[in-house]
């Protein structure tokens, strides 16, 4: 700082700095501003005393705790506990729910189940089935009315608990042979049976000789699981080949490829990884997507 410089115009002292001929007047701060400034300083001291503020030796938790004893970590933990407590009632009720109707007839529980199901679906299921449960090639669309292993509440719940071709002891299991890869059928036989399968769901324009040859192969190789008329069998997870839904694609190339390699879709078992009430919530959510089916006596028994 050089000696004092007084501005001619105003008679006010300047800060002593000069930028391109411009000097800054060293006016005093407004009083109200100073008061607020001092008040803030005073408050900061109060705040240090009240709240965690300073680093401290590890013996003191590593910081000064403050008189109020506020801890955001503890607050969050308490909030989480309160949240769990507020939900526990619903989870208890979900655990006791035996059927979709039991959940649906209780509007509050139904809302809770769908919300819990939706968020858990996004966490655990959407990776394969898609965010809207729309599925991908090889991963079933859960919105439609086609269920490989059954679409009743108990069927869906069983699938969720034990998985499909998973490592769980009670997993749903079946395997389609890789007819081409393992050399069970020739390429021509596979093409014939492909044409026959496509004709089952209304496909036209196939060679009559190929169709009859394909029908023979179908009767000897495929009908055991897919049924004589190709309607499938849910106890074995064998899909209905006469409908409009194709898990592995419905184009001639895709169908031929499926027969050639024999699909082996796997879904993990969720029992033990997710709590039972959460699985129930997921079941209700998947059921509600539009394809849920009524419980049949036989399936109900099978699902037990």
């Amino acid at each position, binding site marked *: 700082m050089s000696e004092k410089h007084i501005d001619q115009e105003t008679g006010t002292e300047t800060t002593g700095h000069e930028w391109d001929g411009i000097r800054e007047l060293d006016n005093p701060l407004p009083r109200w501003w100073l008061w607020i400034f001092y008040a803030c300083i005073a408050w900061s001291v109060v705040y240090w005393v009240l709240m965690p503020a300073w680093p401290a030796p590890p013996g003191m938790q590593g910081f000064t705790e403050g008189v109020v004893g506020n801890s955001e970590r503890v607050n969050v933990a308490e909030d989480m506990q309160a949240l769990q407590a507020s939900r526990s009632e619903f989870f208890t009720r979900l655990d006791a729910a035996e059927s979709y109707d039991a959940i649906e007839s209780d509007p509050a529980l139904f809302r809770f189940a769908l919300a819990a199901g939706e968020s858990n679906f996004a966490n655990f299921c959407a990776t394969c089935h898609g965010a*809207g449960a729309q599925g991908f090639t090889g991963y079933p669309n859960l919105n*439609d*009315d086609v269920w490989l292993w059954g679409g009743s509440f108990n069927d869906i719940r069983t699938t969720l608990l034990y998985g499909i071709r998973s490592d769980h002891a009670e997993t749903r299991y079946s395997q389609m042979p890789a007819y081409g890869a393992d050399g069970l059928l020739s390429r021509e036989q596979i093409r014939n049976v492909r044409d026959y399968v496509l004709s089952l769901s209304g496909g036209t324009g196939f060679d009559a000789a190929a169709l009859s040859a394909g029908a023979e192969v179908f009767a000897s190789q495929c009908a055991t699981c897919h049924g004589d008329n190709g309607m499938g069998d849910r106890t074995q997870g064998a899909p209905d080949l006469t*409908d409009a*839904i194709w898990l592995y694609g419905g184009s001639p190339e895709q169908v031929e490829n499926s027969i050639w390699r024999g699909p082996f879709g796997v879904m993990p078992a969720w029992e033990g990884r997710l709590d039972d009430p959460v699985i129930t919530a997921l079941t209700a959510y998947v059921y509600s997507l*539009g394809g849920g089916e009524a419980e049949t006596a036989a399936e109900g028994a099978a699902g037990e």
Partner: protein
Amino acid sequence: MSTARHNLISAPGVATHDVEAVNDAKKRKLYKKREPIYPKLVHGKFRLAKWVFMVLALGAYYFIPFLRWDRGPSAPDQAVLIDFEGRRFYFFFIEIWPQEIYYVSGLLIIAALALFLVSALFGRVWCGYACPQTVWTDLFIAVERLFEGDRNKRIKLDRAKWSFDKAWRKIGKHSVWLVIAAATGGAWILYFHDAYDTLSHFFTGGSPISAYLFFGVLTFTTYTLAGTMREQVCIYMCPWPRIQAAMTDRDALNVAYRVDRGEPRGAHKKGESWEGRGDCIDCKACVAACPMGIDIREGSQLECIQCALCIDACDDIMKKVDRPTGLISYDTDINIDRRHAGLEPIYKFLRPRVLVYAFALAIAGSIMLFGLTTRASLDVNVTRDRNPNFVQLSDGSVRNGYTLKVINRTHENREYRIAIDGPEGLEWRILGQEETRGLTVDVPAERTQDFRIFLTVPREAITASNQSVIFTVSPDGSDESRTAETVFLSGGSR
């Protein structure tokens, strides 16, 4: 600026005031301590108008929360209520929901336009008469006068040493100020919760913490802004004087000193001739009356709130010295100039600016009125599922999912019938609802309810990838109906 005090008496009861315009822009230093202002009580038509308006405005503010308005059992019966918890704003027959926030915008637009129009016509009448800062400051000054006397007594009291007399007057004044401030904060919170309920819980500590917080903030601001800061709020804190410059023009009425009549000013002795001099006897009654601490004779200034108290003060003097009143009066900039040039004053009220503001105000007002009078008690809204866009079903048919929102704004539970107009052979299902109820749904009073609706269209009816669907919702047994249009997606015919 002025000569030494003179003892010339122009007329009985006319005294020259020993007063300086402390907020004169020329003399005011930026960082100096606030100079106290001791406005002198005046009598006259503008003072009376201000008293009347103060009583009306404060009366309305304190009384309105206690007005009742029957809305049925499901809604509060307070006429004016901002119900944050229930997410409603009630104003007599008007009821605004959060999704209708545009009504609040409309209200603000109308208020702004009205302010512009009034400013264009009469200058800062808002500042002078209606602004809460002005009203409460006026009230606080009245209380001050009650305890400490008028201008001269207050100056004397402030200069006097501390005594019992000074102490009780000061304590009394501040106590009454605090009571008024507390009542102001107290009335404020009554607008946000039921007034009677709040009153019965407030003193026992049973009100929500926000009520005490706002009570505290409003009490503090009322006390400081109206009691100790006063004119400083208008001069330093308020943006309106700056905006005002753009809102007014040379044809707007402002409180003004008639320079042509008043100058040259000077002391006048009774019996002296008025020839060759102005009517202003330089008694400074206008400065003594000014709550802003300015001298109106220096012309229109940012600090002037146009309260017109100087008009009353000057008219009083003019009557006493037997000169025409109106030396200070509402005048326009144009006429000040014209009078100076010896021309006749002209008044142009129907200026383009006035017409535009009036027109805009009329339009905004009618839109608002139309909106409020035709406001439906029912609203519907539909969103189509986007993930997935459509679901292929095994028999070749296609299903779309929709969320239909039905808003019941009435105060009773209602049953609504849904009609769906879409592709032929369309089948519907409402999630979570028994099939026996069909397309009839319940919505509780004042609630918005979501319904998940699945529509399935058979393969033959799918003629395009995008087919129109219209939901029509009507209350059971009523002609009123609302429609929501959407589409049915299928990815094209199969």
